[in-house]
Structure formats: structure tokens, C-alpha cells
């Protein structure tokens, strides 16, 4: 799946993350995590605005990034839960390993392309044995059975538009609709709030991501205004006073 967002073209969340990192590395040797996180989230927001499919894969990586950023902003003497700390390190290492694997395969794919282009200059003949030679047709072997043939036919005849829609599957993700409902109540009461305080009670990274999406949804309806001084600063959420009771979210359960 290829995403075209603003000036970027990327193949999924790992590719997006790699592009953001590479873009920064052109200018400086050390890349600031907070820059990457903010830009990554900005892309997700833009994707939502463009009605692109923000898959759970995007959200899971966003969640890890948000956690890492949050962790980095803690004061050095902050008391930390050791289990949480270890879990976060594990998540980080997994993400790093995935990035490195992804880079490795991208690199070797370029070599394979080059080799194929070189080999492609040797052109074979594809016409087979000419009919006028009248060699009797060989006793052919069909290298599959009826079930195998049906499977092949199904894979060819299932046009891309028939690709199964995964949105309805339950990933055990926290409900964005629930987060929307809750935020609507809380923001009406508080008028302005920082995003960090709104998600202070969240335990899992995916929950933070759910609230983030809920916020985007509310902003899209005009129920709240969202602002941020720069990439580094906290997201400030302000209630616009507009009611949104009659609106139904696309996150609502069917």
C-alpha cells in the first residue's frame, strides 16, 4: 500500500519513519527523537484528514514513539516503574530491529533490481517448439490438483477491489468511540486542557493513540480547536462551544 501525503510518498509506517529519520540525517548527525515523533504524528493527522486508512500498524508505532518521547521528557531523577521501563526498552529494541531489517531489505532490493536489469538484456526465445514441426504434444503434467487450480483461479479472479476489508476485525484495540465520548464530556467541563493531562490515565500506548485519534475526530467536527506552539511543545485542546451531539463518528460501533 502506497501513501501519498503532502510531499511524501511512503509504503507504510516503517518506511515513513525511515524517511523522516533520513531526512534529518542529511543535515545533522544526531537526530532528535522529539522531531521525529512530532513529524510522524503530523503525518498521521494529515492521513486522517485525507481519509487515508491509518492502519493499526501506524498506530502501534505511533504509540511506541509517543511513549519514548514521554519517557525522554521525564526529569532524570523521576521515579520509574521498573517493569514499565523494561517493557518500553523491549518495544524500542523491537522497533529498532524492525527498522534495521527494513533498511537491509530495501538495500538488497536495489541490488536485485540492478541484477535483473542486467540479466534482462539476455532475451530468451519464448515461442516454444514451432507448430509446423509437428512434434507430438508431450504428455503434459499439470503440477497441481483441482483444489490447487481453484485456489489459483480464486487468487487471480479476486480483483484488488475485492480485497478483504480488515477494518471490522477486532484487534482488541481500545475504542476510539469511547475516547471521543469521554473527551467530549471532559473538554466541555475544562474548556482548555493539555493533551498530556487528558491521557494521563492511559496505561497502554494504544490507548494514548486512541485518544489522539479521538482528538483528531473532535477537531474535524469543530468541537475543539487544537494548537501547538511548535513540534516540541504540548498539544493544547480548547473547547469551541459548538455542540456535536447530533454527529455520529465513523468510529461508532456498527
Amino acid at each position: 500500500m502506497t501513501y501519498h501525503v503532502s510531499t511524501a510518498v511512503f509504503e507504510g509506517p516503517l518506511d515513513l519513519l525511515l524517511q523522516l529519520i533520513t531526512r534529518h540525517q542529511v543535515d545533522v548527525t544526531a537526530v532528535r527523537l522529539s522531531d521525529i515523533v512530532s513529524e510522524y504524528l503530523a503525518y498521521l493527522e494529515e492521513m486522517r484528514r485525507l481519509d487515508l486508512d491509518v492502519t493499526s500498524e501506524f498506530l502501534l508505532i505511533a504509540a511506541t514513539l509517543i511513549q519514548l518521547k514521554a519517557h525522554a521528557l521525564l526529569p532524570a531523577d523521576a521515579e520509574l516503574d521498573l517493569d514499565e521501563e523494561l517493557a518500553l526498552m523491549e518495544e524500542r529494541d523491537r522497533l529498532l530491529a524492525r527498522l534495521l531489517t527494513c533498511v537491509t531489505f530495501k538495500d538488497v532490493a536495489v541490488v536485485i533490481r540492478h541484477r535483473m536489469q542486467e540479466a534482462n538484456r539476455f532475451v530468451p526465445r519464448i515461442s516454444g517448439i514451432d507448430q509446423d514441426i509437428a512434434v507430438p504434444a508431450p504428455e503434459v503434467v499439470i503440477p497441481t490438483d483441482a483444489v490447487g487450480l481453484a485456489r489459483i483461479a480464486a487468487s487471480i479472479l479476486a480483483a484488488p477491489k475485492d480485497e478483504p476489508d480488515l477494518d471490522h476485525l477486532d484487534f482488541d484495540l481500545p475504542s476510539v468511540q469511547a475516547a471521543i465520548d469521554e473527551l467530549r464530556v471532559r473538554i466541555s467541563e475544562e474548556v482548555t486542557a493539555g493533551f498530556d493531562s487528558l491521557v494521563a490515565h492511559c496505561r497502554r500506548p494504544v490507548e494514548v493513540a486512541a485518544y489522539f485519534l479521538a482528538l483528531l475526530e473532535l477537531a474535524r467536527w469543530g468541537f475543539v480547536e487544537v494548537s501547538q506552539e511548535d513540534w516540541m511543545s504540548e498539544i493544547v485542546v480548547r473547547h469551541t462551544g459548538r455542540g456535536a451531539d447530533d454527529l455520529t463518528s465513523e468510529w461508532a460501533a456498527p
Partner: protein
Amino acid sequence: MSPLAALEAILFVTEAPVPVSELAEVLEVTPDEVERLIEELNANLEARDSGLVARSTAGGWRLYSRPEAYPYLERFSSSATARRLSTAALEVLAVVAYRQPVSRAQIAEIRGVDSDSAVRSLLRLGLIEEAGRLSLPGNPAVYRTTPLFLEKLGIGSLAELPPLADHVPPAEVVGALEETFRPGVAEGA
């Protein structure tokens, strides 16, 4: 590369005989020069004891295997390499089996790639046959599977082909998802 070698390469890869005028254009020489090159090519093929010969048929030129190669090609056609259906041919066969009667253009549209040589090879192997022509410009042929196809697949009639709906992949997708979200997949590069 000499025009002679380029000419040989063209007459080798082409699927249909190539007219002299077209050869002249591609090689950027005169038609007379093309005729002379073809003569030289055939003299060379002869001199190096080649199994190939350039012949003119249907208003154009093309390389063919020499008629004397017949017994060898006959033996070769029963070898494992020649008997095994290519992936492309297998796909075309699957399309024809489930969409018959179907034209080459329809097959190409369904598969998204040109399928002429696969269709030809299935025709030659007797797995598909012509089943009439469409009343469209050019009267394209439509194809169906043969009794040999049923026999090779070990079924009695087309009605015994497994229904396609059984093979649309939702179950696989669910399985794949579970795998994706199973934590701790080893990822060493």
C-alpha cells in the same frame, strides 16, 4: 554489435516472421542490405554446423530449428522441462477453466499481463481448444478446456471443479493477522 549479429538476435526472439522493411528500419540499413545480411547469416549458420536456419514465411523472416532436429525435439518434448506447465500457463489454464468460453483479450485483462504464448502452449498441449469466435472486430477466438484437461485433473466434468467461493481467502487473512500481532517475532537481520 554488428548488424549481422543484431539481425540474428531479432530473428531469434521474434514470435512472428518479420518483414524485410521492418528489419531495415530497426537495423538502420537498406532493404537490399537486409537481404544480403540474411544470406550471410544463413551461410554462417551452415558453416558453424548450427541447428538453426533463417526462413522466409508469411512475408517475413524468422529463425527456425532445422527439420533434421525433429527426432531430438520429439525426445526433448517428453523431458521433464518440456512437460512441466509454466506458472503463467497454469494461471491461464485456471482462468479458462473458470471463465470459459474466454478470449485472449479477456484473459490478458484478468491476469494483467500479455498471455499469448501461454495460450499457445496450452493449445499445443491439448489442454484448451477454440470454442468459437466473438462477433467483434477481428473476430477473436474464445477458448474452453478439453476432455484431456478433465482427465489430467482427475475429474469427470467441469461441474466437479471446486467452487471458487471456497478459496477466497478470509480465513487466511485472519490467520495472518494473528501472526502479525503475536509479539516477539525474532527479527535478526
